[in-house]
Structure formats: structure tokens, C-alpha cells
């Protein structure tokens, strides 16, 4: 049996530098575009850690599986820490096998996005916990730390006070604590493919229609207001989460990394803006203005952290 208090408390270290993580690409881009994206990241982006691998739909994998090794190599030569992400919802035998293969890769740290992946970890194998695992409280955080989690990307819906409580615990356990900071927020996952449904196709004969939408397909309310987006089996926010204006608050909360999620906008420019802000080269107003310029016709949100609802964009004082 696991113990609830598996890890001992350690003396907290001073607030470390906040690092930047590029989360796994959630959309169905062509292999060529994927490879170009990661090559540019390797060469140009001030990103510390890059996640590679399929999180949303196992049917997309065969198209780019063979390119992953080269992508990983390229990222490593660019000085990035590479993490292999696993699927958020695992039901089929091939999905279980794919997960086992990743967990047993023997070289790279893996990100667990479905509890099922935990079943395959070798004894004392370090792993990261992705934003699809329900980590809402210290008890759960301790269980995962006790199993060997080196870092946890918190569920995007957590409010800032919960983030702070968990980040404080994370620090005492010497575990990283990451927050969803840029991009459409994954809100739900289903066994059913919504892209296929919208195009009147079945999941098995989906014709990969999700590849038509580089950033997901907008879903509006009947009165024409942007609300959600669909990405295969995933439902996402229509807004792009953007915490670039809130980095000071996240630093105070003890967050160790910010996660940027790849979109078709210039992610190199987005990551440079976040890095410059974190390094004090930009103020938050200017950083927010720049991300707005980079993203164009996009609405931002930070409401899960600070607002009454996840969809809101709250402008707030930076430091308590």
C-alpha cells in the first residue's frame, strides 16, 4: 500500500528561476510542419523543456512516429530537455502498447497523462505528471511524489490559491510545479471524435479531418460568440490562456515552470516574450501587448487562475 505521507519534508530552497516548457503539440499538423516547428524550437526558442509525443489521438501517430527520433535528437542538440508525453485517454490495445513503449524508452523522462501509464513505471523511474491527471490536493501530490514524480503540471482549472498551496508543497518535496500558461485550454476528453461527428464521419473512417484545423475548430454559441474549440476527441477553450501578465504572481506562488502549448502563431516569438518578461527585460503590460500582436485575432483568458470563470481575462495588480 502507498503511504499518504511517503516523502519527507525538506528545507525549501530559495525561489529558483522559472523555466519554460513547450507542451506537446495537441493539433494534427503534417509531419513536415511538425518537424519544422521542432527544428525552429531547437534553434531559436528560449525554451528549457520540450514535450514530444501524441496526447490526443492515437490514430495520428503512424504518420509521424518515425520522425520522433530525429525530432528528439534535434531538440537535444539544441540544448533542450526532452520529455515524451503519453495519451490523455487510453482505451484501445494499441494505445496501451504505445504507452508501454514510451514508458520503457529507457532514455527520456516521460509525462503521465492517464493514470494507466503509472502501472508500467519501473521501480524508481522518474516521471512527470501532465495536466490531464487530477492533482487538486496535497494528499494526491504526495502520492505522486512518493511514486517518483519529478514535476507536476497542475490541472489548468486550479485557482491561484490552490496553485500556491501545491507549489509550496512541491518545493518542500523538491518536485517541480508547472502551470498552464499559454494556449487553448484542454477542457475535456471523450471516447468520441467531435471532428468526425461534425463532418458526419465515423471515428474509424475519420479521414483525419482534424488536420484541417491547425489550432482546432471554433465552436460558437448560437448568438455568434466564440466559446469552445474541438480538436478530435478533445474539447478546448476558444480563448487562449495567457498568463504573461501574471508571471510575478506565479513566481510568488512558487511555480517553477510555465507551460506554453504550441499553436500556429509564432511560438518562438511567444516564448521569447515570456522569457524576456521572466528575466525582467519587459514589463507585463508590454509582454501582454506583444503576445496580442503575435497572436492576432485571438481572445486571451486567465480566469481559471484569477477570475470568476475560466473564460475571463482578469487584469490584476502584479504583486501582493
Amino acid at each position, binding site marked *: 500500500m502507498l503511504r499518504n505521507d511517503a516523502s519527507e519534508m525538506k528545507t525549501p530552497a530559495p525561489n529558483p528561476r522559472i523555466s519554460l516548457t513547450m507542451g506537446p503539440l495537441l493539433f494534427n499538423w503534417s509531419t513536415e510542419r511538425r518537424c519544422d516547428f521542432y527544428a525552429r524550437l531547437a534553434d531559436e526558442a528560449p525554451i528549457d523543456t520540450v514535450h514530444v509525443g501524441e496526447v490526443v489521438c492515437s490514430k495520428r501517430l503512424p504518420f509521424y512516429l518515425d520522425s520522433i527520433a530525429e525530432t528528439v535528437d534535434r531538440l537535444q542538440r539544441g540544448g533542450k530537455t526532452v520529455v515524451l508525453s503519453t495519451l490523455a485517454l487510453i482505451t484501445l490495445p494499441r494505445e496501451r502498447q504505445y504507452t508501454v513503449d514510451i514508458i520503457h524508452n529507457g532514455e527520456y523522462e516521460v509525462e503521465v497523462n492517464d493514470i494507466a501509464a503509472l502501472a508500467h513505471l519501473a521501480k524508481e523511474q522518474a516521471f512527470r505528471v501532465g495536466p490531464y491527471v487530477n492533482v487538486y490536493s496535497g494528499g494526491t501530490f504526495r502520492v505522486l511524489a512518493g511514486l517518483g514524480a519529478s514535476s507536476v503540471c497542475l490541472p489548468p482549472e486550479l485557482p491561484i490559491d490552490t496553485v500556491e498551496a501545491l507549489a509550496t508543497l512541491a518545493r518542500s518535496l523538491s518536485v517541480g510545479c508547472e502551470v498552464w500558461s499559454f494556449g487553448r485550454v484542454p477542457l475535456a476528453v471523450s*471516447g468520441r471524435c467531435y471532428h468526425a461527428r461534425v463532418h458526419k464521419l465515423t471515428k474509424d473512417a475519420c479521414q483525419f479531418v482534424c488536420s484541417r484545423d491547425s489550432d482546432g475548430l471554433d465552436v*460558437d454559441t448560437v448568438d455568434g460568440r466564440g466559446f469552445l474549440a474541438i480538436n478530435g476527441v478533445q474539447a478546448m477553450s476558444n480563448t487562449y490562456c495567457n498568463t504573461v501578465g501574471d508571471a510575478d504572481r506565479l513566481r510568488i506562488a512558487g511555480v517553477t515552470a510555465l507551460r506554453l502549448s504550441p499553436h500556429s502563431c509564432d511560438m518562438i516569438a511567444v516564448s521569447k516574450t515570456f522569457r524576456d518578461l521572466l528575466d525582467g527585460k519587459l514589463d507585463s503590460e508590454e509582454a501582454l501587448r506583444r503576445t496580442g500582436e503575435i497572436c492576432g485575432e485571438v481572445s486571451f483568458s486567465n480566469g481559471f487562475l484569477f477570475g470568476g470563470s475560466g473564460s475571463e481575462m482578469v487584469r490584476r495588480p502584479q504583486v501582493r
Partner: protein
Amino acid sequence: MTGHPRLELVCPAGTPAALRTAIIAGADTIYCGFRDETNARNFPGLNFSRAEMEESIAFAHARETKVFVAINTFPRAGQEQLWRRAIDDAVSFGADALILADLGLLAYTSNRHPQIRRHLSVQAAAANADAIDFYTRNFGIRRVVLPRVLSIEEINAINREINCETEAFVFGSLCVMAEGRCSLSSYATGTSPNLGGVCSPGSHVAYRENGHELDSILGDFTIHRVSRDLPAPYPTICKGYFTTEGLWGHIFEDPAGLDASALIPQLAMAGVTALKIEGRQRSRAYVGAAVRNLRRVIDNYAAGLPVNESALNHLSEGQSTTQGAYRKMWR
């Protein structure tokens, strides 16, 4: 002609009165929760005080009915005491099992109350044998409530691999998304079903007349629009009416209730131990009728008699039913 297994019928109770009704109607087991955020049906006026829980468990036990207590939300950091107290109290009142979803609470329960039967809530969304294996190995889970994303074939395959019982939803509302992993309602309202136990909370619902139409609104978003002479649907996002690329419709799922009663023989053959009725928020009359009808179907099947497929039609929401993922027509 006999020899079929008699599946356990697990029935919802939102109130002590519903619990008594369900027991009289033929429930083998009742599941219910405390009147707070610790359970995933935290609606106003619903659920059990401590005294009601203690009395209700005694009432059920006197009639050879089991009671499972659902403590199946995720505790808020720093407030875990509320959830731990719920666990301690349910155990002390003699609950037959606890239905849990959170890793921390599973660890707490298996350390503090190793003797109590632990069931894995559907809110943990354990959708494959590996996940279930993880929970059985680490927390001694005795039964898993299966997510509603699985087909009969998948359930069959899972049951061949795992070391615990499975419980499958057979009737009631249908969660479209993987349960316990959905922030849609939270995105629109700021209230997380995972933390607070309410999806699409009534406090954030409004109905607004709009010319000849009526809008159902959740938070700031219009989730449905119907003609004013029609009943306005409740604004549950995954069953909402939206538009994308010129297409209007139920983008995620049609608003149909689950009725898998006709699949009871297949579920039994797939190795399922227990069948669950969703609906702790439903009226006594609804619960009583659903339990009576399903009791008859289960008993008929156990006795080798034909299963009456339309026994529950009149109870389903919107009069429209689906067999959900059990038969994946969309695959």
C-alpha cells in the same frame, strides 16, 4: 431454464426518502453521499446529513440492503479535512463500501481504514485494465465503476485482465466526456464539478426570452435556443446546441438518456458484477420506477426469461434514449 448470473442492482438515493423507496422497489444496494462538496451530486436540498446517513444505513441493513457512500470529488488543497471526516464518518456508520476517486483519499482510506471496501468511482475514469490494475495494486480497490466511454467488447476485455469487480451504468443521464476529467462547466461558471460536485450549477443558470425564442444560459454563454413554445433544455454544455463552420447542432452529443437495459445479457456475459442507475438528483417517483423496472429485467434475465427492451422508455429524459458507448455506432 436458469443459470444466468443475477447482477447486483445499485441504486441512487438523493434523500433518505428516496433510499427507502429504492429499497422497497428492490434495490440490492444504495449509493448516496453526504450533504456537502464531498460527493459529485452536490445539489441544494440533496444528500444526507450525518444523522440521516447513520439512520439510513441502519434502515438498509435491517432490510439486507447494502449502502455505498460516494466521496468522489477531489479535495481542495488545504481543505482535505472535510473529505477525510466524511470517510471516517461513513466508516463509523457502517457503510458497506466507499466510492472514491482521488489518489490522496484512496491512500488515506487504505492506510486509515484498511478493512473498508474501496470502490473506484467513475470520476477516476479508469478506462483500461492498466489503470484499474494500478488502483487495485496500490489501494486494494475491490470494484471499479466503469467510465461511460467503453463498449461492451472493451468491458469484456478489461474483465478478463483485472482482479476486481466491475460496475456499469445501465440507466440515467449520460456523461459524454471522460468523467472526472471535464472542465467545461468550470470554464463557463468558475465552479469546478471535480471540486464542488456540481456540473452546470443552478446558481449560474438563466433562461432569457429573445423574441420568439427562449435561451438557456450558463454563466455568460447561450447553451441552447429553442422556440418559446417549447420547454427550454437545461444548459448542460456537452449537450448544448452550438455552431461551427456554418453547421448548427448538438456538436458534442444529442441530449439523450442512457438506457442499456436491453444490453443486460451482454453486460453480464462481459463479466460485469453490478449495474448502476444514475440519478441521485431525481425524484423518489423516478427512482422507484427505475428500480422496479430494472429489478424485473435483471430477475427475468437471471431466471432465463426474455429481457423486455422497452420497460424504461417513459422514464428517459427527453423521451429519447441511447445505448451510449456500449454500442459505438459512431466508431
